C-alpha cells in the first residue's frame, strides 16, 4: 500500500478495526516509513488527549433549572444535620450496615468469585429491600425517610456497575453521588478523598445512606473509607460487630450532639 492509503486506514488501525491482513500490511509499512509512523503517533496522542480532557460537571443548579422550566415546585429540602432519627430506626440502620458488612465478609460481592457479579448484585439488592421494609415498619418520628438513602444506594449501585458508554471514569460517578448528597441536603459534609477499588465500591454504595460525602478513583489501590454518622448510643453495637469482621477497621469516633462520626476502612485481600 502507498502512504496515502495507509494514512486513510490509520484511524481504523487505532481502533483495531481492520482485517489481520490489512493490519500486518500497515505494520510492515510503519516499520520502514517514518512519515506514516509519525502520523500514527500523532493520532495516538490526539486520541489520548481527547480522552483525557477534564470532565466538566453539571452546574449545581441544573436540577432546579429543569424543574423550573417544567413548572415543578421545588421539593422541601430535608436537613439531615438537624433531624433526629428515632432509636428504633437507628438500630435498623446499623443492621443494614451489618448486613452489608456481613455480605462483604462472605466475599459474595467480590468480583471474580464464583458467585459472579450479577448474582452478588441481586443478593445485595434483595438484602437492601428487606432492610428497607424493616425500616419502613419502624414508626417514624422524623420527617426524613431513611429509605431515601437506600434508594440512592440502589440507584448508584446500578449506575456504578453499568457505567456508561464504555469506559466511564469513577470521578463522574463520584460527582453524581455528591450531587445526590446535595439533594438530601447533607450540608457541611467535608469532601473526603477516598480511594477505592471496584470491589470496594460495591460495598461503599450500599451504605450510601450513611455516607456523608464520597469521592474516589478506582485507579488507586488504597483502602476505602466510609464516613458514617450514627446515634452515639448505638456505637457500642457497631463496634461489637466490627470487631468480628476481617478486612475492616474503624477510626476513633467523634461524638457531637448525640451523634457519633466515624470512618470505616475496608481493605482488599485477606
Amino acid at each position, binding site marked *: 500500500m502507498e502512504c496515502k492509503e495507509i494514512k486513510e486506514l490509520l*484511524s481504523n488501525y487505532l481502533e483495531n478495526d481492520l482485517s489481520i491482513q490489512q493490519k500486518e500490511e500497515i505494520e510492515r509499512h510503519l516499520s520502514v516509513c517514518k512519515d506514516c509512523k509519525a502520523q500514527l503517533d500523532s493520532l495516538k496522542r*490526539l486520541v489520548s488527549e*481527547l*480522552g483525557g480532557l477534564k470532565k466538566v460537571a453539571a452546574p449545581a443548579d*441544573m436540577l432546579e433549572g429543569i424543574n423550573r422550566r417544567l413548572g415543578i415546585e421545588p*421539593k422541601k429540602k430535608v436537613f439531615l444535620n438537624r433531624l433526629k432519627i428515632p432509636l428504633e430506626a437507628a438500630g435498623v440502620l446499623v443492621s443494614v450496615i451489618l448486613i452489608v458488612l456481613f455480605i462483604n465478609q462472605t466475599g459474595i460481592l467480590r468480583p471474580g468469585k464464583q458467585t459472579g457479579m450479577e448474582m452478588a448484585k441481586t443478593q445485595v439488592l434483595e438484602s437492601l429491600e428487606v432492610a428497607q421494609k424493616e425500616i419502613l415498619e419502624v414508626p417514624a418520628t422524623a420527617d426524613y425517610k431513611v429509605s431515601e438513602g437506600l434508594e440512592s444506594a440502589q440507584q448508584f449501585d446500578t449506575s456504578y456497575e453499568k457505567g*456508561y458508554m464504555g469506559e466511564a471514569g469513577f470521578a463522574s460517578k463520584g460527582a453524581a453521588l455528591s450531587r445526590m448528597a446535595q439533594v438530601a441536603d447533607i450540608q457541611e459534609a467535608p469532601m473526603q478523598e477516598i480511594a477505592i477499588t471496584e470491589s470496594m465500591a460495591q460495598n461503599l454504595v450500599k451504605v450510601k445512606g450513611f455516607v456523608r460525602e464520597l469521592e474516589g478513583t478506582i485507579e488507586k489501590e488504597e483502602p476505602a473509607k466510609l464516613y458514617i454518622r450514627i446515634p452515639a448510643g448505638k456505637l457500642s453495637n457497631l463496634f461489637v460487630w466490627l470487631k468480628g469482621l476481617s478486612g475492616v477497621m474503624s477510626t476513633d469516633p467523634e461524638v457531637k450532639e448525640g451523634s457519633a462520626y466515624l470512618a470505616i476502612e475496608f481493605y482488599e485481600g485477606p
Partner: protein
Amino acid sequence: MYFSYDFDLIEKTLKGDNAAFDKLVLKYQDRIFNTAYRMLGSYEEAKDASQEAFVNAYRSLGNFRKESSFYTYLYRIAINLCKNRLKRLNRESKFVSVDTPISTEDGEIRLEIADDTSSPREALDIKDRQARIQEAINSLDEEHKAVLVLRDIEGASYEGISQMLGLNMGTIKSRLHRARYMLKEKLKDVI
C-alpha cells in the same frame, strides 16, 4: 433487566412521581452536560442545552420505547439539540472574533493567537492545552464534532453512536477518521 432501574424510574415519573425524574436527572446530568459542553464549547450554552434536553426528555417520556437504554434516548435528544443550536449560533455569528470571550466553567476567557516562535508542547500548561483542544473541537462542523465527542471524549461504542445519531457504521468510521485528521491538523503545534 439490564436497564431495569431506569425503566422503573420512568414508570414512576409517568405516574406523576416527579422525584423519580429528579433521580434520572441526577444520574445523567454530568454526562449530558460534559457532552454538551464539548459540543458547544460554552458553559452557558451547555447548561441551557442540557436543561432543554432533560425537559424535552420529560415531555416526550410517554413516547419512550424501551428498545434502547434511557441514556441513549437522552443522548439522542441532547445531541440533536446541540447540533441545532450550533447551526443557529453559526448563522447568528458567521465569524467569531478572536476578541470574543469564550464561556468556561472558570468564567470567560479570551482566545490567544498561537505564538509560533515559542517552543511547542512544553510551553502550554494543561489548562492552556485543554483550552486549545476545545478551541479546535469548536472549529469542526457539527456532524464531525458529534461523532468525535461521542467516540473520543465520551468513549461511546460504535453501536451506541449509531443509535444516538441514526448513522450506519461506515459513516461513523469515516466521519471519525476525518474529524481526527482535521483536529490533528489544527493542533499540530500542540500535539
